[in-house]
Structure formats: C-alpha cells, structure tokens
C-alpha cells in the first residue's frame, strides 16, 4: 500500500524498473518459444498462428513495456538525485504516468485471455510490432486483438508523455544552485533529449493509432487501400515515430555509459561539450531519417537517396560518442567491475550494430537484405547488446544506491559472460542466415537452404542467456536478503546521488547541495584540487 499510493520518484522508479523486468521475463519467454520452433527445419512445436502472435507480442513488449519503462524508470530515479532536487517537478503526474503504463501493459496482455470477447481465448495481436496496413483492417484482422494492441500501447504512451513533461520541467527548473546546464551529469542531457523525442514522436503514433481505431470501429478510410485509404501513409506515420523511438531506447543507455565509464576509468568524461552537441544533433537528425525503414516500398530515387544520406549523417554524431568513450578509457586506471564490463560490452556491441545499420542504410544493399534475418541481427545488436547491456550495467551500478546492498561481483561476472556469449551465439549467426536469404517472421523453413546450422546455433544461445538472467535474479534476491552493506559511495564516484545515504531518504538530501563544477563530489573529497579551478 505504501508503494501503491506513493508519489516519491524513487519508489515509482523502482516500480517502473521492477515491472519492466517482469515484462522482460515474459517477452524473453516468448522469444525462447520462437527459437525453439526455429531450431530445426520444418519443426512443428508451434503452429503458424501462435508464431505470429509470439513475434508481435515479443517485439511490442520489449519496446513499449521493457525498454521504455526501465529507461524512464532510471530517469525517474536518477534525475532528481543527480541534479540535487527533492523530487520531480510534478510528483502526482509522475505517479499517474506510472499507473497508465501498468494499465496499458495489462490491457495488452489481457488480449491473451479475451481479445475475441466471449468467443475464445488465445487471440493476442498478430500483426507485427509495426502493424502494417492493410493487415490491420477489419477484413484481415478479425476479433479485437488489434484493438487491444492499439489501446494498450496508446495508454502506456500517454504515460510516457507525462513522464517526459516531468523530465523536462525537472531538468530545466529544479537543478540545485550552481548546477548550470553544462555542469549537469551527461545522463541529464540524454534524458532531456529523450524527453523531447518522446514529446515529438509518441504523439504521432498516438495520432496514427486513433486513425486506425476509427478505421476499425467506425468505418473510416485512413489506411485501407480498398476504400481510397493509403497503406503507405501508415508506414510514414509509424516510422516517423519508429525511428526516434529507437533513439529513445538507446540515448538513456548512452547516459549510463557516460556515467559508469568515467567512474571506473578514474577520469572525467572525455569531451563533455562535444558529447552534448552530439546528443542534441542526434535528437534532431533522428527526426529526418524514418524512411530508411521503407526503402523497399519504392519511394523513388530522390527520396531513397535523401533518407540514405541523412541516415549516414546520423552515424557521425554517433561515432563521436564512441570515440569520446574510448577517450575516457584511454590512459585511465580501469577497474573491470561488473557495471564496467557491461558498458564496455555495450560499446563493442553497439559498434557492430551501428556498422550493420550503415550497411542497411545503403539503398541497393537494403533491397537485398530488408525483411531478412540480417535486419533482425542489426537491431538486436543495438537493442540487446546496446540497450539491455546498458540497463544491466546501470542496475549493477546503482543497485547499491537504491537498496543499500552490494550485488555479488562473482555472480555478476557470470551473468555478464553468460549473457555476452549467449547473445553472440544467438544474434551473430542471424547476419549469416539473413545474408543467405532467410526472411524474418517465418514460422518454419525448408531443410535444403543452408540455414539450419545458423538457426541451430541461434537457438543454442538462448538457454545460455537464460542462465545468465537466472543468476542475475538469484544475485539480486540474495543481495536484498543478506548482501554486504554498500555505504553511501561504494564506487568512489563524483555525482550528487552518491553524496546522500543509500538508500536515500524520501526527501533525498537533508540540505540541498550546491555545486561548483561538473563533479561536485570530487570537489568535496579533494578540496585542495577542485575541478572548479580548471573550468
């Protein structure tokens, strides 16, 4: 009850992260079933209809109910603590947003039970996470499964938007005395840009979903080509949301890396101003690249080249970040604790995913590779190797702050290596099967195409990853019960959240902190050599 009525940003954040992790287990299970079915050719563990539901629910869940809430949850936890405020700008709005997210998630999952009304269970959405028209029209998608998809995402989307408003207001209005924008921890900038992207992109999806709902329930003609509607329009609207969405999912993880890496390299973040510029640049450019998801539609050479070019352009600021992180590690005293392992893994995996992204931005190449397993490989390198690794790094890093207990390092390293190896086993071979022509979203395949071995390796990776996650869960439970006490500042870090107790009191700081540089705790610990001197 204490938790259910709470408006404390820390409690809400922990509930966000906890709920997100639960959905992570569910969506992971859905993926495991798909890999089981694809482990060998002409398998028949899972029938085609169920397979469609599995990949739809897996993708939708991972994006909207795992990635978004966990990342926004970290924003919720960290922003007030790191800018030295007592809470978010609008605490009650914050709680409202959280419960919208929970309600939306439950609504989506309720479809497993009752999307056909009284007629039968087991009718989860099956139109793919991007729900292309005209597959979503009444004619092809009967029952109410697609309506559940629309409403569940729409409701949780409103939750994200209220959270974004809160982020912006908190960052702009509630920073402690002395914390100018350019002294704000890097993660603050990342969250600011993410909140901006949420406010631009999610409403477009909401608008498109309202139109789709009108099509389906009131007989409007937005997207159904049979009745003058345009299926392409849905793609434009969806991807205008969809591409910024992938940056919404990666920028907070960039933030985690930018906080964790300096701490364990014992150096300041390399090139802070450039990092800010790159982040803002990515925010803007990411609004102008959406049609790189539509190269096989036939938009014509002009549009194709334009969107190919903007996509290449966005890899420039992205590359700047990579070099800044390498610059941070360069010459530092590196401590490979578990969080550091995860963020280092992040950088490596993200570079691979970024490179396959650039390959896919090459129009003629994408004509071959689009909708193949190569694309699946690409986005899992950025979303799993990127976002999820970042999230694990963040969990290991801030768990002691949030709970006052340290996670076990030995088990943590097991988690990292099992996840890393399992991840590589599962997703690296997808580039090969994709290049060999295997389309995505097929429930089975014939034996003589040369795809079997790659699929088998992919499937073998799954239990390895599951073991890693299981060890993590055990580690967390054990630490909560009888983990060693963390103390206020176990990593000897420099940002404000480590200057209060672990866990922090409800009001965060007994006295509102002040800061004179980008590393307030460094200044406090080394009064003889404060950063302010060099700024």
């Amino acid at each position, binding site marked *: 009850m204490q938790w259910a009525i709470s408006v404390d940003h820390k409690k809400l954040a922990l509930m966000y992260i906890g709920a997100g992790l639960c959905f992570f287990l569910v969506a992971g299970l859905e993926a495991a079933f798909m890999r089981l079915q694809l482990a060998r050719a002409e398998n028949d563990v899972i029938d085609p209809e169920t397979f469609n539901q599995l990949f739809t629910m897996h993708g939708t869940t991972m994006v909207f109910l795992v990635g978004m809430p966990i990342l926004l949850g970290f924003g919720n936890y960290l922003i007030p603590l790191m800018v030295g405020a*007592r809470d978010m700008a609008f605490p009650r*709005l914050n709680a409202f947003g959280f419960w919208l997210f929970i309600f939306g998630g439950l609504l989506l999952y309720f479809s497993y039970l009752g999307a056909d009304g009284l007629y039968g269970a087991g009718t989860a959405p099956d139109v793919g996470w991007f729900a292309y028209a005209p597959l979503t029209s009444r004619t092809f998608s009967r029952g109410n499964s697609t309506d559940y998809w629309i409403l569940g995402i729409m409701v949780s989307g409103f939750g994200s938007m209220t959270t974004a408003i809160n982020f912006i207001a908190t960052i702009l209005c509630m920073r402690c005395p002395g914390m100018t924008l350019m002294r704000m921890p890097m993660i603050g900038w990342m969250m600011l840009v993410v909140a901006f992207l949420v406010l631009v992109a*999610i*409403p477009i999806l909401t608008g498109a979903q309202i*139109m789709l709902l009108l099509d389906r329930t009131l007989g409007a003609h937005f997207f159904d080509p049979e009745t003058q509607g345009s299926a392409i329009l849905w793609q434009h609207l969806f991807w205008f949301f969809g591409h910024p969405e992938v940056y919404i999912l990666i920028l907070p993880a960039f933030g985690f890396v930018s906080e964790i890496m300096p701490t364990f390299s014992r150096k300041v973040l390399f090139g802070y101003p450039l990092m800010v510029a790159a982040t803002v640049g990515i925010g803007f450019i990411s609004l102008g690249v959406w049609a790189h998801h539509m190269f096989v539609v036939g938009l014509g050479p002009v549009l194709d080249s334009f969107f190919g070019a903007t996509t290449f352009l966005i890899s420039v600021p992205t590359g700047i970040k990579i070099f800044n992180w390498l610059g941070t590690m360069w010459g530092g005293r590196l401590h490979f604790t578990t969080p550091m392992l995860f963020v280092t893994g992040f950088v490596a995996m993200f570079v691979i995913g970024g490179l396959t992204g650039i390959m896919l931005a090459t129009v003629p190449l994408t004509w071959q590779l689009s909708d193949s397993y190569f694309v699946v490989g690409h986005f899992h390198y950025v979303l799993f190797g990127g976002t999820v690794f970042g999230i694990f790094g963040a969990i290991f890093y801030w768990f002691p702050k949030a709970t006052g207990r340290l996670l076990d390092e030995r088990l943590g390293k097991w988690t990292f290596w099992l996840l890393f190896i399992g991840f590589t086993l599962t997703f690296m071979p997808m580039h090969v099967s994709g290049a060999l022509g295997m389309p995505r979203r097929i429930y089975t395949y014939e034996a003589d195409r040369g795809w079997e071995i790659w699929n088998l390796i992919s499937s073998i990776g799954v239990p390895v990853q599951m073991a890693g996650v299981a060890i993590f869960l055990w580690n967390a439970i054990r630490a909560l019960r009888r983990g060693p006490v963390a103390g206020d500042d176990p990593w000897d870090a420099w940002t404000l959240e480590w200057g209060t107790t672990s866990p922090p009191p409800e009001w965060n700081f007994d006295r*509102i902190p002040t800061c004179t540089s980008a590393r307030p705790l460094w200044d406090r610990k080394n009064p003889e050599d404060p950063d302010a001197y060099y700024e």
Partner: protein
Amino acid sequence: MTALPANPEAAATLRSPLSRAKVGMACLIFMESAIFSAFLVTYLYYIGKSPDGPQPLECLELGLVLVNSACLISSSFTVVISVRALARGAMGAFRFWLALTILLGIEFLVGTGYEWWGLIEDKGLTLQSNAFGTNFYSLVGLHAFHVIVGMLMLVVILVLSIFGFIRPDRDHQRVDVATWYWHFVDVVWILVFTLVYIVGRVPQGAPAS
C-alpha cells in the same frame, strides 16, 4: 505519501528563472501540436485524393463557420482581458470576462454541431462516405474535443473563483498559464480552418494518379 519535512531551504531548489508550471504547460502544448500535426499532414495528403462521394466544394459553406471562428478567436481576447482583471484584483470583471469566454466557446461548439448536422442530413457526408469525410470529421472533431477540454479548465477556474478559492496575488500566474491552452486551441483552429475551408476546397474528383 509523506510530506517533505519542513525545511527553509526547500525553496532553494527553485533557483531557475523558469517556472515549473510554465515549462510543463509549454511541453503539453508541444505534445498536443505533434498530435495535431499527424492529423493535419494526413488531411493535406488526402486533399484531392477522394474522387467518389460528397466533395468539399459542394459541402462546406463559409457562412456559419466564419461566425464560429470569429467567436473562438475573440474568446482569446476576452480571456486575456479576464486575466488582466485578475492581476488587478478586480474579481467581478475577471469572472465576467471569463464567463463570456466560456460562452463564446459554447457558441463555437454548438455552431460546429449544427454544421455537422447539416452535413450529415443534407449533404450525406459522414465519416464513412469517403476519404474527405473521414479526414474532415477526424480533424475538426479532434479540435472540437480540445475545445471541450480547454473549456472545462476555464469552467473549473470560474467555479473555483465563485467559491472564493482564487486569490489574485497567489493565483493569477497559474490562471494565466492555464489560459495558454485556450490560446493554443485557437491557434490550431486557424490552421485547421485554413487547411479545411480554404486550401481543401479546391475542386476534387480529378482521377487520382
């Protein structure tokens, strides 16, 4: 829900010249603009691409809608006058101009409803008839929905002030921020009007290429 401990320094968090309420409202308006742009762009996309059924030129007449628009736009001015009155502490004038604003908003809604009734009964234009009908009712309806939301805010303020909960010194800035939303609804109407009644009334029915 524990209250923060009384602490004289709590105010120190508010170092920034920006007020939370203003930033929050600006963000809300920004987000709403994004929703509207999805519908506006879609409307634009479908202009001239709706060959069958009732056409904009034969359905839409400017008479009534101009009256409605005049009411809505002048309500932006009345609301400004009302906020100024509040800042001066003239509660009577504040309530009068606020009530007038609400009445103008009601006229807009009733007028729109009357127009829709005519369109449905006489012209046979419905959401289902063609792409034009779909877009027309969605866009204008979305806007009307926002007028209702904005009006509810104003009604709440009016009721609060009648019961004496609004104090000029303390609340006039908050009320001012709330009226931003009303101005936003007005500005969007200017865009919708231009698109639907001016740009969109080009002759249609040319075979879609």
